[in-house]
């Protein structure tokens, strides 16, 4: 083919960063971006935080910058979801039956929020996954009344933090005995629960939700398994996501809770097709496991990997970045690196640096570092990520964190 064309299905962070990485590496061919949403690309982490609070508007979270589509020389096909894939003809089929041919295809269709359904299958909770969700929830919270967040995960916790900041009486309901414990383990889960309670968010843990019954006035009643009923002006479901991979059914591409791909993010069952971000389940080389990770940094790093692999077929890079995510709740920055298992040994350390207490949880198995969580110490987390990447011991990690704490630094902020 005379002109090379990369088609990117998905216009969220993974898709946009792929296009940017291709251009940064000097790719001169065509880029076509297919987006199910009709709005220009935007960044999702602020939806549960600054965008929900009203501090940010859409222009603050736009991903393309002032140059727009021209800045990445990409052709957008917006509001036109990909509905099927023809791997033999190397074509993506859109909802209006238009066929878009590709030399390389990057699947970055992301995931959508699970929600709570009534017995008839109708949603009875709001979610926060796209900009319309966030606008609707902001509007609902602004009318006043209590907010009930179902699910003690990070997105739900961020919504609770923001709702509380906006003045709403806010409750988190979590079925597990300790919120956040599925991801962070019980010790750090308890610390985060206390953080919410100290900031006027009520935490009800170890209790499931039996039903959510909407009332005629737009409010709802949340019936818990212990017989309690909570009145809610807004019910928010923070109960996980479902990968947007249905459009690939029947294409020959392997899908098992995510699109199966190898360590280069190359998809099994189709030539020149890659998958990245929340929709991808990729082979993690060190363990041989197939993993699907729903973090922003994973999507961005995989975008760089795939852009490189498209342009350097003979020098492919395996994707093996340290799992990392952050969350901001009640003014505290929570950062995590690694893989936490329920059997990890956990040590909690507090370091006094620049007149503030910095907490770090060091997770290990047989003395070997498996993960770290930092609360309010970004520099400590940068070190933890390096320690994790070089497979340090927990003892080395603690010793180096102590040294770091003794050598505090402050960046120089030069007025623009």
């Amino acid at each position: 083919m005379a002109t090379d064309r990369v088609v990117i299905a998905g216009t969220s962070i993974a898709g946009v960063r792929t296009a940017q990485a291709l251009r940064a590496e000097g790719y001169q061919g065509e880029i076509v971006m297919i987006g199910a949403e009709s709005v220009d690309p935007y960044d999702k982490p602020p939806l549960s935080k600054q965008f929900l609070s009203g501090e940010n508007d859409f222009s603050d979270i736009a991903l393309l910058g002032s140059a727009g589509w021209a800045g990445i020389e990409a052709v957008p096909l917006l509001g036109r979801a990909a509905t099927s894939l023809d791997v033999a003809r190397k074509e993506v089929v859109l909802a209006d039956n238009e066929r878009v041919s590709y030399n390389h295809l990057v699947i970055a269709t992301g995931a959508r929020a699970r929600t709570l359904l009534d017995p008839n299958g109708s949603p009875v909770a709001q979610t926060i996954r796209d900009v319309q969700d966030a606008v609707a929830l902001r509007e609902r919270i602004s009318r006043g009344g209590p907010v009930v967040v179902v699910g003690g995960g990070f997105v739900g916790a961020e919504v609770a933090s923001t709702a509380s900041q906006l003045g709403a009486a806010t409750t988190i309901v979590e079925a597990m005995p300790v919120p956040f414990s599925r991801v962070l383990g019980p010790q750090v889960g308890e610390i985060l629960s206390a953080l919410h309670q100290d900031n006027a968010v009520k935490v009800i843990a170890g209790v499931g939700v039996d039903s959510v019954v909407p009332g005629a006035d737009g409010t709802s009643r949340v019936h818990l398994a212990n017989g309690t009923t909570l009145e809610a002006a807004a019910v928010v479901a923070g109960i996980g996501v479902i990968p947007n991979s249905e459009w690939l059914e029947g294409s020959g591409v392997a899908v098992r809770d995510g699109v199966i791909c190898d360590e280069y993010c190359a998809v099994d069952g189709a030539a020149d097709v890659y998958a990245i971000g929340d929709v991808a389940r990729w082979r993690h080389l060190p363990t041989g496991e197939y993993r699907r990770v729903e973090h922003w940094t994973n999507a961005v790093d995989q975008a760089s990997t795939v852009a490189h692999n498209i342009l350097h077929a003979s020098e492919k890079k395996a994707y093996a970045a340290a799992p990392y995510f952050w969350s901001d709740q009640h003014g505290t920055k929570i950062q995590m690196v690694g893989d936490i298992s329920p059997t990890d040994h956990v040590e909690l350390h507090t370091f006094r640096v620049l007149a503030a207490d910095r907490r770090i949880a060091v997770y290990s198995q047989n003395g070997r570092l498996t993960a770290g969580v930092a609360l309010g110490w970004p520099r400590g987390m940068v070190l933890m990520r390096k320690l994790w990447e070089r497979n340090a011991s927990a003892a080395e990690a603690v010793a180096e964190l102590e040294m770091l704490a003794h050598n505090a630094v402050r960046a120089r902020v030069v007025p623009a």
Partner: protein
Amino acid sequence: MRIAANVGACQGYGNCAALDPHHFDVDDDGLVIVLRDSVLDGELETAAAAVRSCPVAVLELLEDGN
């Protein structure tokens, strides 16, 4: 190329320092420190990836002389 940083807007996510520790670090309160602002040709792919990895877009790669 060279790196420019809007340090005051940094949120300390640390992705830049994780990807490209030759050019970036963060301080204890989570503000970026550009260790060296010049980017050599062989460093460009990594530095550009680090710039793209900033969740709050405070980093930029500029042509020399700008």
